[in-house]
């Protein structure tokens, strides 16, 4: 009898220990990798590519998703967080609910307000199922121990609460019944995970997107994000077909190569099913309806070769005296070799960089060229940083703006050139 009682006590203790351990495990490591549905993990991988998560949450040369990439904002520098499942420095202790709250409400696991550099104003539109799939994907990645650098931000976190009260509109978007399923799918991806407006919509003084100017063009880490609405500066209208090609390969022959912070976006979209990229293209093309290029194309017959003869003009324009500060001569000698007569470079008359509201992108691409990331496919252009001095750069910009884009001169080209020269060097070091 005493033996039976002892056995009973022992059994209860074991059960208690098991219960205690199990309860602790649930709190400490919310789900173990094996518990995730492989289909959810796979779907999450695709969705993470739509969301471009790796671009911000990976430091140059660092492990994927381990964070630490510096994101310059007008309010200071924010370092991206580690979203690998490392328990101490990553999201290893986060439950699915906590992850959902961060994505959809912008609140951290510890309850603090997250800075909207993390675009939860867009991610709030993402369905629970999709957020859970991304969670399943991230939690099954290799944990990486990496404590990112402390943010250097001028705004205290509690103030973000006030910012949210003013500008944050949580919750999903109701589908637009006047549009078809493909358009609505595109809108869901663009306005949600894709967070295209984060760069392509202008922000107000407090850093919130201006909904009344959706897709009117913005800035992104020192680059200009062109307008994607009727103000699109593209010299040729974008078709759905071309947008699909551009977004999934980083290049379209009538518009050029993705550069700067757009390049990794297209690298990620290359791994997204074509139907979703096409849906994004359908929605973006609908935003650009009525653009100047579209009106122009509608009013005049297509002229195939009209754009490809700048060089002859440039040679005629070039001053007879040999002048190394003459924009026409610089174009004719340094650029025309590739950018004329259907050689490798696209005709500059097709390039948005010369018709956009700032010369920033043109200057940055000319100084630093275009190079696909190590091992990735993409357009190439050599850097002219060492060959062109500031005065030559300004002369080239002014000449092409007037002659090729046929537009009024940009103000402050000198300052833009000086800024791009310094900023690009800093990024490289």
């Amino acid at each position, binding site marked *: 009898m005493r033996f039976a009682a002892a056995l009973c006590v022992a059994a209860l203790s074991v059960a208690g220990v098991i219960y205690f351990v199990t309860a602790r495990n649930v709190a400490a490591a919310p789900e173990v990798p094996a518990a995730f549905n492989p289909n959810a993990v796979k779907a999450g991988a695709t969705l993470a590519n739509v969301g471009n998560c790796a671009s911000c949450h990976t430091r140059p040369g660092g492990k994927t998703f381990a964070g630490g990439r510096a994101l310059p904002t007008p309010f200071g520098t924010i370092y991206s967080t580690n979203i690998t499942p490392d328990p101490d420095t990553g999201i290893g202790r986060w439950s699915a609910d906590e992850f959902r709250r961060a994505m959809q409400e912008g609140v951290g696991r510890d309850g603090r307000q997250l800075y909207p550099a993390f675009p939860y104003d867009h991610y709030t539109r993402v369905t629970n199922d999709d957020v859970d799939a991304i969670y399943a994907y991230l939690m099954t990645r290799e944990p990486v121990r990496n404590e990112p650098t402390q943010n250097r931000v001028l705004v205290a976190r509690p103030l973000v609460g006030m910012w949210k009260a003013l500008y944050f509109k949580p919750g999903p978007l109701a589908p637009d019944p006047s549009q078809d399923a493909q358009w609505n799918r595109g809108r869901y991806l663009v306005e949600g995970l894709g967070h295209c407006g984060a760069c392509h919509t202008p922000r107000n003084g407090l850093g919130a997107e201006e909904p009344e100017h959706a897709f009117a063009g913005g800035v992104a880490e020192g680059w200009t994000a062109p307008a994607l609405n009727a103000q699109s500066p593209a010299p040729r209208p974008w078709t759905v077909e071309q947008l699909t090609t551009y977004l999934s390969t980083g290049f379209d022959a009538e518009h050029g190569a993705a550069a700067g912070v757009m390049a990794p976006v297209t690298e990620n979209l290359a791994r997204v099913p074509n139907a979703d990229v096409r849906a994004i293209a359908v929605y973006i093309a609908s935003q650009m309806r009525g653009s100047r290029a579209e009106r122009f194309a509608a009013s005049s017959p297509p002229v195939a070769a009209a754009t490809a003869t700048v060089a002859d003009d440039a040679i005629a324009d070039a001053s007879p005296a*040999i002048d*190394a500060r003459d924009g026409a001569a610089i174009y004719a*000698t*340094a650029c025309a070799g590739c950018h004329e007569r259907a050689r490798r470079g696209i005709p500059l008359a097709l390039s948005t960089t010369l018709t956009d509201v700032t010369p920033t992108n043109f200057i940055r691409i000319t100084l630093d060229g275009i190079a696909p990331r190590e091992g990735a496919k993409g357009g190439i252009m*050599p*850097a*002219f940083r060492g060959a062109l001095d500031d005065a030559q750069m300004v002369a080239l910009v002014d000449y092409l703006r007037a002659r090729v884009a046929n537009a009024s001169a940009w103000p402050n080209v000198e300052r833009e050139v000086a800024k791009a020269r310094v900023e690009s060097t800093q990024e*490289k070091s």
Partner: protein
Amino acid sequence: MITLKVNGTTHDIDADPATPLLYVLRNDLALNGAKYGCGLGQCGACTVQVDGQAVFSCITPILLVQNKNVRTLEGLGTLERPGALQQAFIDEQAAQCGFCIPGMIMRAQVLLEKNPAPTDDEIREHLNVNLCRCGTHMRILRAVHRAAKILAANGSSRS
């Protein structure tokens, strides 16, 4: 006529202003250090210094470098008195076929003038633009480190 300053000497060149700098260096001035690799600014074999910066001479028209200071491999030293980087590349036997080496040396020179003691990562990042198909990369890394030490011992980052 276009006036070029190469390795401290002034030359008046009678050529089309669109002529690539590389052609003038090799064909007119007999400076054969810089090599023609791809002709597209994609391999770095033609790299020279212009006002202290690395430039692909194969895609740089002479118009752009008029009156600027051009420095080629020959400007770093002579057979009898090689410059620090040249000596270091010899000591480390960093060349196999050697075609890429003048470009490697000239781009490394730009790095050492800005950063006299670069780390492995900094050298890799900086020389990333230059291709070597023989695979002597590890020796090139060692050579750049060795040159940095030689220069530090000489107390100058200029060779």
